[in-house]
């Protein structure tokens, strides 16, 4: 058994301590954080200001348009963001995050628009002025636009803009005129537009979930959706990437003809165990790397309590289960074929295990203790992914007997799968030529 760590270390070293892995799995994610800070700032530098004159033809909305433009209509993006941030719990927004968010939304266009009234008869002349860039736009409002009623087809306006005007600038002009029309209509009824806007703002809720054993906990709606997805993808990425490394490294050893040399020194089981363990550490590096980034982000948002230590322990336990299931399948498939192309047809079972959780993610997140979740929690290849979704999604804790039961069933299935796959591996590594059928691989299990 002392040979297994030697194989494992080589596998780890030649996967994780390579330039490709360090650049792809460590440096790139680390670079993403400063990029998130720097990129919005760069975007804001590139936004072209919207300046010039807009001529309004038709019902008079000039005053409202000028007011809105003067109030820098484009700040509404930031306002919307602030409203969204307000939905978050107390302390959720730290200064760093707020700065990041503001820089992203603060890249709004600088606005310096003047408005003039125009006559319909001079429309063609004004279009020419727009073409020659002397005017930014001409807006023609339908006559009945300020008296809206159900079925009123006059609730429209036309905008003529110069060639080359950006979609962003056009959107700003559209929004500005729309809001000016609405504001003019409201003011005409004698109401104050600002008061109406304040009244129309939807109230926000603070949900408290009453727990079974007494007490209550704050319900974070956004976290309820995001955290299970993040956890499941974390395990998915770590498992899939290492399973893939295992598949390709096994195929490489076969195609390089180094396999028989290795088998002269170690048993096929030792070789497979060493390779799986080595890649397990690679997978763990990926998990810790990305998981650590996620946790760091939660700490930065003062939301670390959303991921208690028990959840992390369960994540690691279910990750191990998922990894060993996928890895043993990948190793046995890799042993049976001579190139990656041949592996595609045999890799179906592993891909099914990986794809099903993606399909089931939504319904299980919505009803983590529902019938679908309960049933699929006991199907061995799906156990780790479904249980990760459940333990992280559920406001009501998953019953402890279900956690313990799925851990026992899952790890029992891991032992059976590793045994079956090692039987296939031991025969497959010595096979050359055309790839076997799944039926032949099952027959290999019975070979002495």
């Amino acid at each position, binding site marked *: 058994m002392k040979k297994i760590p*030697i194989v494992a270390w080589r596998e780890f070293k030649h996967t994780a301590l390579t330039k490709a892995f360090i650049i792809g799995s460590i440096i790139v994610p680390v670079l993403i954080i400063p990029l998130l800070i720097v990129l919005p700032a760069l975007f804001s530098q590139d936004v072209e200001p919207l300046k010039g004159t807009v001529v309004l033809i038709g019902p008079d909305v000039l005053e409202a348009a000028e007011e809105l433009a003067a109030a820098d209509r484009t700040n509404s993006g930031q306002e919307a963001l602030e409203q969204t941030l307000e939905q978050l719990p107390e302390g959720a927004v730290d200064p760093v995050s707020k700065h990041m968010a503001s820089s992203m939304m603060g890249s709004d266009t600088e606005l310096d628009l003047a408005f003039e009234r125009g006559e319909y008869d001079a429309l063609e002349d004004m279009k020419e002025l727009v073409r020659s860039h002397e005017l930014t736009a001409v807006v023609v409002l339908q006559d009945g636009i300020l008296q809206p009623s159900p079925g009123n087809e006059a609730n429209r306006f036309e905008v003529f803009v110069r060639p080359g005007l950006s979609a962003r600038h056009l959107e700003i002009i559209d929004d500005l005129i729309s809001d000016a029309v609405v504001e003019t209509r409201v003011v005409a009824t004698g109401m104050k537009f600002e008061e109406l806007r304040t009244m129309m703002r939807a109230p926000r809720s603070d949900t408290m979930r009453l727990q079974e054993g007494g007490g209550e906990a704050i319900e974070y709606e956004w976290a309820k959706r995001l955290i299970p997805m993040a956890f499941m993808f974390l395990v998915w990425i770590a498992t899939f990437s290492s399973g893939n490394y295992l598949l390709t490294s096994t195929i490489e050893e076969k195609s390089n*003809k*180094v396999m*028989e*040399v290795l088998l*002269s020194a170690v048993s096929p089981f030792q070789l497979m165990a060493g390779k799986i363990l080595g890649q397990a550490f690679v997978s763990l590096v990926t998990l810790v790397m990305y998981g650590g980034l996620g946790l760091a982000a939660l700490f930065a948002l003062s939301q670390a309590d959303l991921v208690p230590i028990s959840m992390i322990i369960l994540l690691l336990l279910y990750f191990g289960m998922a990894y060993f299931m996928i890895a043993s399948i990948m190793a046995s498939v890799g042993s049976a074929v001579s190139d990656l192309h041949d592996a595609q047809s045999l890799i179906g079972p592993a891909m099914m295990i990986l794809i099903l959780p993606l399909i089931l993610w939504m319904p299980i997140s919505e009803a983590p203790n529902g019938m679908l979740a309960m049933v699929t929690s006991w199907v061995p290849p799906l156990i780790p992914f479904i249980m990760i979704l459940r333990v992280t999604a559920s406001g009501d804790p998953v019953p402890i007997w279900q956690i313990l039961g799925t851990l026992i069933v899952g790890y029992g299935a891991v032992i059976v799968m590793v045994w079956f796959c090692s039987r296939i591996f031991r025969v497959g590594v*010595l096979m050359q030529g055309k790839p076997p059928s799944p039926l032949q691989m099952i*027959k290999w299990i019975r070979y002495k």
Partner: protein
Amino acid sequence: MGAEPTISLRNVNKQFGDVHAVRDLSLDVHKGSLVGFLGPNGAGKSTTIRMVMSIIYPDKGTIDVLGDSALAAKDRIGYLPEERGLYRKMRVGEYLHYIGKLKGMLRSNAISAAKYWLDRMELPKVNRKRCEELSKGMQQKVQFIASILHEPDLLILDEPFSGLDPVNAELLNEVIRDLNAQGRTIIFSTHVLHQAEQLCDSILLIDQGEKILDDTMDGIRQTFDPRTIEVEPTIGNELPVAIEGVAHRSNQGEHGIELHLEPDRDPQDVMKRILASCPVRSIRLRRPTLDEIFVMLVRDRMHETHTDLVPGGIES
């Protein structure tokens, strides 16, 4: 040759599906011997070697290696398989240390042994090179070093000379003889039979999973009577008359015309007839080569009849 067998197979059988790869095979390889393990393609050589290496296990029968089970003896065996290769991106030194450690060596011992053998095999500056940077012949030598690094008591070499130029083949030949002289048992599998003839002191020949020859080289030479006369006439390339007792002649050989005798004919009698028929520059009774014995034995099994030489001492 010592009495203690290094490898002992008793009634070993191995079947893959419907294919019977090894049938009831029993054999002994004695300590310190250099055995040629021969057979046509698909004869069961690789399967037998893999069972000795405990890469696969027999369906029936027992295998003892170095006085122990095949699995327990794994670290005392050096194996150069026919299907061999290297990790392309790994450095030569790193690869040798890795294989050495897998064979139970301490890292420090593996490093010093690798250095010694790289020098001995005339590869002094390749330690830091990646395996893919080496020529085929150099890779071949690195693979050979990997099989002997841990000073095995039993060395199994499958086609060790393939890919080597004559100079390196001679170097390898010398090393193999040295290792054998140190008392290590060596099994040498090849299709180049004259190499086996030159190198080995005994031969094991199997076909269709069964042993058809197991003897020392001297024993084989005695068993297979010389039945070919090589004659070089003084004038021309033909004998003037047909010689009684000659079954057929083959093309001009290295030492003249080759005349193959009829069964039970006395070679001395036929040689006298040749000398009486014409003047000759040279005449000699040639021993059968291992190639000829191999072809004859395998062909005879295929046709289940013996038409030429009559071998003795063949176990079936």
